[in-house]
């Protein structure tokens, strides 16, 4: 398919050359290209509020991205000021306050050089996972897949948006046969002695896929971060979502896979969907540029919330085969 595109571009380009196409630099005449405050952050009811503040730059600006470390950032709960947020480095601002479900939160940012910006979001109730079933399918080239059937009930009489993510949690050790940083020894199968230089738990997102050919109709966007969908087709129903993930990035001896069903507000749903489309198509001359959604008034970025219902499954490596163990 790519070759077709290349050939098409060659033919069109040849025609343009034949037509003595010419190129010149022109002025970018933009009426409203003021630098804006960029506010990014997702809050939830199980952790303190942290947001990131930076500033946009002109499309032709070559300078490095600048974080704003001297902005005044305030958090409001249902229009009542909770307090100011403190810069903790590289543009991140934090306040030790845990949001509550069903409440509206506003972050207002002001800075002497730029227009004030703010965004509002609501922390939603999470939606419970009823059950998760898994089974393995074996591919021809050891491309074995871990398949999931996830059952949940969409709340009735309200518009709901979701994001589904998988988190891989495992203990990682890094080995060296020369560097002796850690006391623990590991004796390899060939009796060589190696030293463990690092050991710790790692959490990484797992890529989720929907089944090809039988694509789940409710899935509207899929990316490395997860699957995004709304209840447009399943409103008020109990639904079993089918997806899979490869065994490829299982590491170590034991992996715990967290399945997270996140209830997200509409703004975050629009943001994720448009962001993924943006990355998929950016620079493609055959499609229209995609605008990424923002809910920041007078600014850019996304300030939203997520309410996570999480379940987990444990897989154990036995003779290079992974087996589902228990929760």
């Amino acid at each position: 398919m790519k070759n077709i595109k290349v050939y098409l571009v060659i033919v069109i380009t040849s025609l343009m050359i034949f037509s003595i196409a010419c190129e010149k630099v022109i002025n970018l005449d933009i009426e409203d290209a003021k630098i804006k405050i960029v506010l990014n952050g997702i809050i939830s009811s199980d952790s303190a509020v942290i947001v990131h503040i930076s500033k946009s730059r002109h499309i032709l600006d070559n300078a490095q991205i600048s974080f704003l470390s001297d902005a005044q950032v305030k958090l409001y709960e249902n229009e009542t000021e909770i307090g100011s947020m403190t810069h903790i480095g590289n543009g991140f601002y934090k306040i030790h306050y845990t949001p509550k479900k069903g409440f509206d939160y506003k972050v207002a940012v002001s800075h002497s050089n730029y227009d004030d910006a703010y965004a509002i979001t609501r922390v939603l109730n999470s939606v419970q996972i009823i059950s998760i079933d898994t089974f393995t399918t074996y591919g021809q080239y050891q491309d074995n897949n871990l398949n999931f059937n996830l059952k949940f009930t969409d709340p009735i009489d309200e518009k709901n948006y979701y994001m589904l993510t998988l988190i891989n949690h495992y203990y990682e050790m890094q080995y060296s046969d020369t560097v002796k940083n850690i006391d623990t020894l590991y004796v390899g199968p060939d009796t060589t002695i190696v030293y463990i230089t690092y050991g710790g738990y790692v959490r990484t997102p797992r890529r989720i896929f929907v089944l090809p050919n039988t694509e789940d109709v409710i899935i509207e966007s899929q990316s490395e971060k997860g699957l995004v969908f709304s209840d447009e087709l399943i409103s008020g129903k109990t639904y079993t979502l089918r997806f899979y993930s490869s065994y490829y990035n299982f590491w170590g001896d034991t992996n715990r896979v967290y399945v997270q069903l996140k209830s997200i507000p509409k703004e975050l749903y629009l943001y994720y969907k448009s962001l993924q489309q943006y990355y998929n198509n950016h620079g493609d001359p055959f499609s229209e540029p995609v605008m990424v959604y923002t809910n920041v008034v007078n600014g850019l970025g996304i300030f939203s919330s997520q309410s996570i219902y999480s379940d987990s499954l444990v897989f154990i490596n036995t003779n290079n085969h992974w087996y589902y163990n228990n929760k």
Partner: protein
Amino acid sequence: MEKSKFLIIFLLLFFFLSLEKSYAQRYTISGFVQDKRSGEKLFWANIYDTRTKLGTTSNEYGFFSLTLPSDTVELTISFVGYATFQTKFFLNSNLKLNIELDPVIQIAEVTVTDRRSEELVKSTQMSLIEMPVQQIKTLPVLLGEADVLKTLQLMPGIQSGSEGSSGLYVRGGGPDQNLILLDGVPVYNASHLFGFFSVFNPDAISSVRLIKGGFPARYGGRLSSVIDIRMKEGNLRKFAGEGSIGNVSSKFTFEGPIIKDKTSFIVSGRRTYIDILAAPIISAINRAAGGSDNLRAGYFFWDANAKINHKISEKDRVFLSFYAGRDKAYTNSKNKYVYNDTTNTSINRFKLTWGNVTSALRWNHVYNDKLFSNLTLIYSNYLFDTGMEFLEYRGNKLTSNYAFNYFSGIENTGGIIDFDFRPVPKHSLKFGGNYLYHTFKPGVSAFKITDGSTSLTQEFGNKNIYANEFYSYIEDSWDISALIKANLGVHYSGFILKNKYYDSFQPRISTRFLITDKISIKAAYSQMQQYIHLLTNSTIGLPTDLWLPSTDSIRPENSHQVALGFNYDFHKDWDLSIEGYYKTMDNLIEYKEGASFFQLSQNWESKLEIGEGYSYGAEVLIRKNYGQLTGWIGYTLSWSWRKFENLNFGEPFPYKYDRRHDVAVVLMYKLNENIDFGLTWVYGTGNAVTLGIARYLPLVEYDEFVQYYDSFYYYGQEIEYYKGRNSYRMPPYHRLDLSANFNKKIKWGERTWSVGLYNAYSRQNPFYLYFGWDNMGNRVLKQVSLFPIIPSVRYSFKF
């Protein structure tokens, strides 16, 4: 809807009641208007009695019927480009009158009634453009290729797309909303060479007519315009030919009688030779660049028209017309190498072809001096085919073959019946219907793999879709009084696809109020429905565009348009027309954000967004029709918007070809019998594009590591900020074209040398914009332009 139905029924009742009214003794003059030299029928000629101020026009087949009181008649018959025929007689019986008009050779010397102005002021039809073919041939154009559609783009309300393109955007509508009829047969992709030329060879065309509002009930199936192009019928009296040799193409037309005054034919052909001229250059460049042993690449198009016209009797005529055209872009490369004493050959082929075939068989019948019918059987086919193939030979043995093909298209067969009926002097009725059987081929891909002993052929994509479309109509051109005239009609159409049935009842009203003999006001309302959609890539116009039917989820497009016009015939050579319009359009389709033709794995319906559009504006046209200097100035002030729930976050956005100001100045100056000059200057507000104006960081969720990342970590992930879809305007477009024609009579006919300058002051007009880098490493906005100043020369002959 119900109200409009009642209104129509009321009006029809009123009409039939009015038929009961008795009239004074009246007689009917009927017959055909034709060209004196060739015997070809003249469509839409004006027949007018200056005493009673009653008149009519000849229909699409040259037939007219005019009923007048028994009295002295002063009949004027006029047609643009022909000397006006005037006759005076006493009408005391029904009269058959076949009129032959003389083509005007020296316009400046002939005193003629200003037929165009008269028609403009007195007809109920508004928003009408008639373009004489001779004018199309005289005006300066790109590479000297006279082009029907590009000449229409010079009229107000009709806009071009991107640089050099022959796409038409009429009153804020899309290119798919134009019903382009060649001898009554719909043409689906009217472009050659990615839109730089239209498929209509002017040498084979006899008339061009475009309606952009106030649509008569006989037309339907598209929202924004009807472009009615009629092929020549062939000279009934003598053999004649014309041809030309130009920079990029040559063409030849030959016509003549098979049986004098009874049967005639015309054949016409055109082919470009860019490929032949460019082949050695491409090959040499390739070798110099160390490319494959043998590379051939090129592009060409050809088209051919043919028509036979046979007069069975005074009352019956048949016509058989045919058009075929094809574009092809290709690359072929062949590499040879020796391995283990065996010569191996690898061949790469790529092709991109598309084209139309249309055919019409038509039968005209005159029942009596008041009733005329035309039956047409039609066939049309548009096919787009692209593919690539890789072949590997060891010696002479094919060892592997990989091929990929993608094709799409649309095919129609059907019939149309039209009747013209003149029951009483003040009413002229047209009624009829049509049926079309559509076969949509919305994108099929085929893979073929042969590798050693393994062979696999697989097709996937969208299956053919079959649909039935029909309409019936009735319209009445009604002289309500000497001052007020109206054309009232209804158009009922239906579309059947599997078990889904859509239908539409569309009222059409056009009225004219004559303030004085030289001034009129017109108003029109029309509702249109369109059952087929064009899914088009919005960034560049390619023949990959898909024609698709309405389905369960994709409803038919429909529009409502109101138009108000003022016409003033203020000088014997000049006229003025001002029109305003407001148009709404529903169920428009667009690709979903990020979707495109290349995503073959998806069903086409899943790639679509459905929305609405609305446009409004004003058009001014000042025209000088006679004298040494002729031409026009057109100005359009317009707005065109689109609104889709899932595009631009539901906010209305300007249509890509929303153009606030559009100006065209067209001048033709005839210095003497042998030399004439042409000038066109166009100006248009820049096209609306989506362009990033800022960049910013995406969402990064905080974790224990992220606070240590520096800005470099985010560099590739930045988001470009667009203020809105199509919110940025490219620089304005303007261009001056000049031409000169040097005619000379020679012993066997006439020859013309035409020289032209396209873009005479070499304006770098924007084709597309992109962000790049300058020599100093600064990020800059770059504009790519296609055509600088391009001279052209063409030698034409006629005998």
